[in-house]
């Protein structure tokens, strides 16, 4: 359990949490319908007016070497820091950044490093922080996932404070992809409504500053879990499997009556909201008040989990459950307790949940007031002797070389044909997923079976996220040849590979993808140890999985096991 010291929301509705909360409480929305990004059709989205982010940034700092995405984060973090006594430059303070696509609109700018790792380091250095920032890039659940990671790293005793900040800026890249998925509503979205037809995208940054010490009179992050559907890389589970399991994990021992609010993802796509209604019903939460905030902010992607957590904290502190703008009549097979109007709230705890591509789902339990003793976790991880390494020139399993003849991308397919054979979906995967899939298959052929279907986590990291496939997708949205490919777009998230491995092995446990500046075994081990704080996790497939281009890659995976003693 960790305590909330300060927070900020920076969105088109306001520059502070308070401004955003009062705007939403009064029924305002950031959604506007307009032509944007040269797509030849109007979209409904919540976007910053041109020039606003630059002007807001220039008002607080003279640091000029930043992109719009990075400026949004700096603006949000600066305000949150001004509201507490946390020393951002202390080695005992960690930056945890959440984003799905970061600077994706700049991937083809010559000489520019568009990696999320580069952005995160720039931001940490801006605030004088000496630590390597942790970036969580786990599709739409990133913002909740980042808070869970922060909780675990604070509970490991390594840090006193964590600055958890998430953001995404919208771009032609992202909007065209959602259009190709037929996932956008041309009008304002209608979460959980019978006539919902899709989502709206939004821009925002949001920050929560956490303390390792829980607060007796304040909000605390009490529990969190990430679970995979093990079903499909883009379609939500028809049984709400991963979402239900995440909810079940965080509500163990909790009386449902204590829960004042469940703030759902509520994207307003037909399948997401239906899935969430099933998961809530299965988790015994159907009677609890539910709301969704996408009708005010749109889907703010990497910011959503943090922004919506903050809105929920502020609304409950104000004794209010915010109305679900856009909802009219029940449109899910399981009835949930949802209302378009603001309602009075009672209770000292709430749940924030999210689901995303790659089959990932995350949920956290936030609680007001708690014992003030810091919780220190003793969870440790031990690297087993089971390892896989694949480079463009060869492959090694448990240190022994495999006999291969091909090199580069052909090597991965040679390994697939020799050691996997029966999974034609391999040929649909992007190069990063092919690499991770084949590496995990080689590793698992040597490993003992997982103890339970949710006991093996998949924890992967790299520097360039899904850059290789991002460039392939980018080629399908040029002005003179605009045919955005949904099959490529779905792989423009680095965590899809974790979903592919989960689907193949029917692993319902945690799946998380991190973006880090470089291969750092100690850092990866510390993130694996963090994942072992989940009560279900007993082992993890973890390591570095980098693939900046189809012929340039490195996979170094290890099977880790939970242990109680540091090793």
């Amino acid at each position, binding site marked *: 359990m960790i305590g909330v010291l300060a927070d900020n929301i920076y969105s088109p509705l306001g520059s502070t949490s308070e401004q955003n909360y009062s705007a939403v409480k009064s029924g305002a929305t950031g959604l506007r319908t307009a032509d944007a990004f040269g797509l030849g059709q109007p979209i409904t989205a919540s976007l910053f007016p041109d020039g606003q982010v630059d002007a807001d940034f220039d008002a607080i700092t003279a640091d000029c070497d930043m992109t719009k995405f990075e400026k949004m984060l700096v603006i949000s973090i600066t305000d949150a820091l001004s509201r507490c006594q946390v020393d951002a430059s202390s080695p005992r303070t960690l930056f945890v950044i959440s984003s799905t696509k970061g600077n994706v609109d700049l991937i083809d700018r010559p000489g520019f490093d568009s990696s999320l790792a580069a952005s995160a380091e720039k931001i940490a250095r801006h605030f004088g922080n000496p630590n390597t920032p942790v970036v969580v890039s786990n599709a739409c659940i990133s913002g909740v996932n980042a808070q869970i990671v922060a909780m675990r790293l604070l509970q490991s005793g390594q840090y006193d404070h964590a600055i958890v900040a998430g953001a995404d800026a919208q771009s032609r890249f992202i909007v065209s992809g959602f259009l*190709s998925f*037929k996932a956008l509503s041309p009008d304002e979205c209608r979460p959980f409504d019978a006539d919902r037809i899709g989502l709206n995208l939004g821009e925002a940054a949001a920050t929560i500053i956490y303390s390792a010490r829980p607060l007796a009179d304040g909000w605390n992050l009490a529990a969190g879990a990430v679970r995979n559907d093990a079903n*499909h890389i*883009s379609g939500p589970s028809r049984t709400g499997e991963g979402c239900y399991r995440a909810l079940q994990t965080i509500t163990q021992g909790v009386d449902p009556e204590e829960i004042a609010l469940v703030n759902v993802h509520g994207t307003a796509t037909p399948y997401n909201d239906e899935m969430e209604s099933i998961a809530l019903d299965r988790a015994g939460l159907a009677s609890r008040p539910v709301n969704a905030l996408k009708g005010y902010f749109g889907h703010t992607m990497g910011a959503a989990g943090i922004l919506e957590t903050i809105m929920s904290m502020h609304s409950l502190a104000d004794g209010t459950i915010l109305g679900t703008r856009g909802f009219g009549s029940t449109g899910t097979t399981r009835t949930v307790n949802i209302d378009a109007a603001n309602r009075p709230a009672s209770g000292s705890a709430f749940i924030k949940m999210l689901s995303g591509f790659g089959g990932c789902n995350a949920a956290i339990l936030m609680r007001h007031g708690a014992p003030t003793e810091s919780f220190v976790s003793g969870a440790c991880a031990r690297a087993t002797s089971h390892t896989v390494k694949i480079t463009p020139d060869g492959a090694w399993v448990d240190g022994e070389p495999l006999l291969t003849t091909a090199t580069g991308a052909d090597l991965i397919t040679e390994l697939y044909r020799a050691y996997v054979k029966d999974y*034609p979906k391999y*040929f649909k995967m992007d190069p990063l997923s092919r690499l991770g899939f084949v590496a995990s298959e080689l590793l698992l052929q040597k490993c003992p079976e997982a103890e339970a279907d949710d006991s093996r986590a998949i924890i992967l990291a790299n520097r360039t996220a899904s850059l290789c496939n991002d460039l392939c997708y980018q080629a399908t949205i040029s002005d003179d040849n605009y*045919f955005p*490919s*949904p*099959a490529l777009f779905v792989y423009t998230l680095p965590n899809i590979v974790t979903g592919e491995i989960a689907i193949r092995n029917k692993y319902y446990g945690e799946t998380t993808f991190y973006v880090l500046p470089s291969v750092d075994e100690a850092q990866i081990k510390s993130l694996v140890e963090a994942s072992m704080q989940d009560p279900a996790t007993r082992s993890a497939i973890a390591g570095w999985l980098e693939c900046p281009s189809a012929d340039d890659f490195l996979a170094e995976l290890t099977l880790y096991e939970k242990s109680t003693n540091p090793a």
Partner: protein
Amino acid sequence: MDNLVKELKEEIIKVLNLEDITPEDIDETAPLFGEGLGLDSIDALELIVMLEKNYGIKLEDPAKGKEIFQSINVMADYVANNRKK
């Protein structure tokens, strides 16, 4: 029509990365989704893009795809009657 059927089969194999499947393997009367080729919702979206790119056919409602992608023969009929290029 035979040429269009063959062309569609080749194009489907290409855009959906159906490795190790030849045009002869695809039964033009069999359902494209569900059993058979094991295609999924992303494949359906990709076929919608293919119809627009190759034949100038714009499908705004993905549900319409379900009708058109019943089989190669149904798809060929639809393309022949609605193609703009």
